[in-house]
């Protein structure tokens, strides 16, 4: 299940310490639209193994600033509440599964 994070929801999920993959996006960003189906797919594929979610940088500017998101889409991976990796720009699904699989 794909989670659309608010700041509160995000912080709560982060404090759980699970493996997380979060796509920072916005509606005015073409490349983000391209990445969306990939993120949707991964959310389904990693159900129960990792938390897959999205942060709308327009609505949650504080989160975008906190993680220094300067280009979207940016996908950030977290584990134990800390950032472990990030991918900037549109990439094939494999680039994300590689990070997820090596941190399961």
């Amino acid at each position, binding site marked *: 299940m794909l989670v659309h994070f608010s700041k509160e929801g995000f912080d709560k999920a982060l404090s759980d310490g699970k493996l997380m993959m979060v796509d920072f996006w916005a509606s005015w960003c073409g490349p983000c639209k391209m*990445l969306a189906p990939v993120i949707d797919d991964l959310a389904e594929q990693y159900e129960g193994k990792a938390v897959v979610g999205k942060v709308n940088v*327009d609505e949650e500017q504080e989160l975008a600033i906190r993680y220094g998101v300067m280009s*979207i889409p940016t996908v950030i991976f977290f584990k134990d509440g800390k950032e472990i990796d990030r991918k900037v720009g549109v990439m094939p699904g494999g680039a994300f599964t590689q990070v997820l699989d090596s941190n399961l």
Partner: protein
Amino acid sequence: MTYDLIVLGSGPAGMAAAIAARGRNKSVLVIGNHWQDSPLARAERVDNYLGLPGYTGAEMLETFYRHALDMGTEFVIGKAISLMAWNGFMVTVGSQVYEGKTLILAPGVVRQAKYPGEEEYLGRGVSYCATCDGMLYRGKPVVVVGRSSDAPHEANYLKSLGCQVTYVSPQPPVGLDGDIPYVKAGKLTIKGEQTVTGLEADGALIPCNGVFVLRQTVAPTDLLPTLETEAGYIKVDRRMATNLEGVFAAGDCTGLPLQVSKAVGEGHVAALSACEYLDQKPEQ
């Protein structure tokens, strides 16, 4: 809608590909700059193209463009900034996404090397897309490196979002908002620590949080990182097929000689190969 073919590039190779595919009744979208921006448009006289001696480069391009248009080719003027293979291909131009079943790369040759620091800080202050990332720099100082005809327009857009814009280019820009400071410089280095802190332009440092590098085209190898090249040119076989399924290439991007007749021939072959690929592919 999903096009049968998406052609990246509106020069002779791209137009020839479009015409050949339209002749096979395939739907074609050409994404490219205005034909006036093609390097060929600056050629004073082209005398070695079969049947059209004495044409200027601009006359030739306009003739090709009209022909492609009359054949029912659709055009989008703009720059493909990102691309993804996903049930065919998705191409982003600004905030729009276009879908196609096959792809023909005909972008010409990108003659601009990357600036020092550009690759290192990509996504950490360096951006190729004002529409995508401009909002993330509201209220902050940014530099637009103008290397394309639409760059002044993009700079004006960034200013309208509330960015503090400085415009840097070797030649004075046309159409730049008078309130945007212009710095004439050619030798650029992007500086930073964790993220971008400034741009060194001909030895002088301009402090900024973001650098928007706006070139005429995004190199195909940046759009498709697994695309095979050889000595800087896209590697193709006699069918003009690249190493990637459903992706063909034609024209200057595949290598010498950089001539219109060679580009046109290759564009034609690439389109026929793409049509053959489409006809053999089972319907999804």
